[in-house]
């Protein structure tokens, strides 16, 4: 794998159609098969129905997990879905994408004796899938119309949760989103095998069925509309803008084919109809240590890349991808190399040929380069070292902290008519489930402010 610094001789090999049609189908099906009825019953029976359940405390949206599991065991799917969705209107997606191994399932008391928590995520998926398959009468109804209209900017998890909460409380909601489809990262981020069968849109369809929410896509703040205009026109504004900037890798980035942002690659995968049309390199290097890096690396393998390497500048414990995600990457044939930072993208006339790294180490707690270097041959280098908030459309109206929006616990910003939540808000963990909680809490705060 390690090549001389002069890796320029390696021929570029980026192409589509590396696999047979059925291989694509197999590779991009549901990564974790849903539970069958029998499995769900057995798993539900494992729940101890704890007092003041630690799993519920660990859930950013505070879902009453013991109750929703008890209701699965009781054959009360509607009640189970209600327990989930009343706390988390995107409970279906969270069941698929939550890093449960560091949230509810980490807190499960079954870990103490068995090292095997109740499969809360899979049970949550079971309940929500079963409910969405046969929803019946609406689970939630709207309060009497308040006559107020709130604008939500960004139709990602935070914005959608906020919109749903506001609609339940009787307010009219207009949701603006820059993309062609609502959903934010639920639609454009996340690995495809985590959310198959167009689930993001099906979930949004259910969420909007409450009524009172109008979605306007292809509408970008700062381009099609300004914050001033929104503040002037609506009773309140919720910003769920997400992180639209991509951090650069801090070295020269030649404008050649093969060097790109992992988030673009992931978004492309989410929108493509035929995976066979997507080009992928033979040797792919992903730089970064988070979920985006794992999703990009694993999906490169699933598209047929022969060698995929994640390179991260610190050790395994420093990666923001959970141990489970790291394991998942390795099970899918991805090599993870730690303690290396990018030094130079190697490129020839046709495109990327490799990338050279500096070996790193900790010296008195500080990350330093040891002076040793190595290069990896690659025809694709994906950058996944994090996204950043683009504050420019806010003008000087909203106070920031470390480049993200400052809020109080309820999401109130420095402007009395503006609330914010999700990844654009300072101090979070950049989790879907946390974004949902931000939106949910902000909806209550906005409602209180409007009634004041």
């Amino acid at each position: 794998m390690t090549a001389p610094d002069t890796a320029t001789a390696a021929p570029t090999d980026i192409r589509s159609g590396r696999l047979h049609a059925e291989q694509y189908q197999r590779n991009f099906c549901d990564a974790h098969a849903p539970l069958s009825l029998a499995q769900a019953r057995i798993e539900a029976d494992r729940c101890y129905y704890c007092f003041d359940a630690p799993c519920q405390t660990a859930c950013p949206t505070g879902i009453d997990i013991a109750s929703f599991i008890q209701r699965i065991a009781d054959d009360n799917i509607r009640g189970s879905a209600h327990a989930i969705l009343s706390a988390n209107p995107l409970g279906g997606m969270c069941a698929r994408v939550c890093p449960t191994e560091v949230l509810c399932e980490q807190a499960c008391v079954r870990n103490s004796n068995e090292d095997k928590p109740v499969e809360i995520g899979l049970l949550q998926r079971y309940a929500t899938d079963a409910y969405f398959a046969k929803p019946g009468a609406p689970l939630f109804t709207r309060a009497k119309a308040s006559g107020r209209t709130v604008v939500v900017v960004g139709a990602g998890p935070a914005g959608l949760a906020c919109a749903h909460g506001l609609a339940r409380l009787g307010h009219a909601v207009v949701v603006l989103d820059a993309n062609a489809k609502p959903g934010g990262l639920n639609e454009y981020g996340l690995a495809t095998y985590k959310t198959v069968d167009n689930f993001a849109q099906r979930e949004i369809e259910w969420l909007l069925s409450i009524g009172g929410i109008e979605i306007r896509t292809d509408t970008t703040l700062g381009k099609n509309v300004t914050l001033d205009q929104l503040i002037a026109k609506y009773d309140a504004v919720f910003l769920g803008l997400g992180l639209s900037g991509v951090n650069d890798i801090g070295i020269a980035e030649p404008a050649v084919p093969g060097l790109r942002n992992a988030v673009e690659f992931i978004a492309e995968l989410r929108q493509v109809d035929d995976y066979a049309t997507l080009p992928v390199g033979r040797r792919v290097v992903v730089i970064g240590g988070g979920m985006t890096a794992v999703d990009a690396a694993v999906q490169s393998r699933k598209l047929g890349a022969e060698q995929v390497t994640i390179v991260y500048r610190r050790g395994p414990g420093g990666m923001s991808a959970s141990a489970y995600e790291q394991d998942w990457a390795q099970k899918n044939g991805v090599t993870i190399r730690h303690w290396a930072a990018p030094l130079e993208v190697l490129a020839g006339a046709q495109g990327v040929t490799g990338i050279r790294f500096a070996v790193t180490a900790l010296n008195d707690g500080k990350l330093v380069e040891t002076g040793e270097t190595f290069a990896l041959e690659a025809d694709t280098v994906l950058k996944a070292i994090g996204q950043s908030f683009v504050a420019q459309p806010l003008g000087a109206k909203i106070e920031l902290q470390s480049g993200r929006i400052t809020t109080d616990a309820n999401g109130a910003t420095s402007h009395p008519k503006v609330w914010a939540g999700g990844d654009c808000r300072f101090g979070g963990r950049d989790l879907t489930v946390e974004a949902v909680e931000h939106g949910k809490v902000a909806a209550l705060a906005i409602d209180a402010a409007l009634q004041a």
Partner: protein
Amino acid sequence: MANLTTEFLGIKSPNPFWLASAPPTDKEYNVVRAFEAGWGGVVWKTLGEDPHIVNVYGPRYGTLLGNDRRVIGFNNIELISDRPLQTNLDEIRRVKRAWPDRAMVVSLMVPCEEAAWKRILPMVEDTGCDGIELNFGCPHGMSERGMGSSVGQVPEYIEMVARWCKTYSQLPVIVKLTPNITDIRYPARAAKAGGADAVSLINTINSIMGVNLQTMTMSPSVGKQGSHGGYCGTAVRPIALNMVAEIARDPQTAGLPISGIGGVHTWHDAAEFIALGAGTVQVCTAAMVYGFRIVQDMCDGLSNFMDEQGYTSVSQMVGKAVPSITGWSNLNMNHIEKAVINQDSCIQCGRCHVVCEDTSHQAITATKDGKRHFEIKEDECVGCNLCVSVCPVPETITMRTLAPGEIDKRSGKPVPANYANWTTHPNNPTRVAA
């Protein structure tokens, strides 16, 4: 390997595990399979008069399920044997000849008429079987025809029929009792008075398994209607154990041999019946859930237990625990226990706390120094054992007996060393002097 050989009313069997009179002992084919698997004996499914009865051809069984669809209880509406009497008698004769070392007891149910019993008894005796069991227990179907539990519920009938059987047959007579009665001692006394050699119990308990809420029909049902059935399996074992013990400790029936029946699924269950006075045990549900080979696990477990405890025969264990059963008024009011939670194995589920808080004595903490922590508050604990019962982790909550002289933090007084029961308690209006 301990010697499991059992002698009950002179009937020898290589182990105390008999199959109860029920579908598993319906015919030669089943019984031969059972003996091949190692069962010590069978009570052949109840014979009646010709023309033979007929069963329904819809569901005959209903089930109470626990976690992971484990069978906790069964109920059934099967009647007695639905084959011609002679067919059964021929098969019984053949099987007994082929398996002379196994107990072969034949269950009988004919109308409460002396002539009917006088007619059938010689035919049964002629098969070479070891004994008869009078089915005064079936609570469904046959009871509507004046047999089964409708006999078992009238002690005078029990005594009368038992006497006929002892008159017209040389065979040992076991009377099978119905639990569908308020005081099991009366039918047992009647059986003894009629000359019966032993009682077996319990037969099944009247039950309805449930209701299909979609169709609003009881379950199981035969088409649009069902009928109450006989309940058995693990769920009935505590009821059966009590009834066996009641008979074992009743001065009027003490020493009367008992064949224990009711939810024996493991060697452990069998040992409990034996400890409360049963000389053999009869099993049905366990076989109907797992098949006949389960007897091998029962024998193996019982044998290992006996070796470990130093018992060299099953009879040494019979009734060993009976003296431990007494009336409530004899219980020692000066015996005080407190629950103890092992913090090392506690998994912090908090169930002990919430049940104590909601339904008992508010004697378990939920937090300590602001952290999740479950600990007994001895000044509130009454030693009720509820927390032990609901804790999902074995051996994590245990009961500690306070030593005489130790201060009971709840009363603030030292634990008295003497035994004192309710009969002398100051709060007892009818107390007697201590």
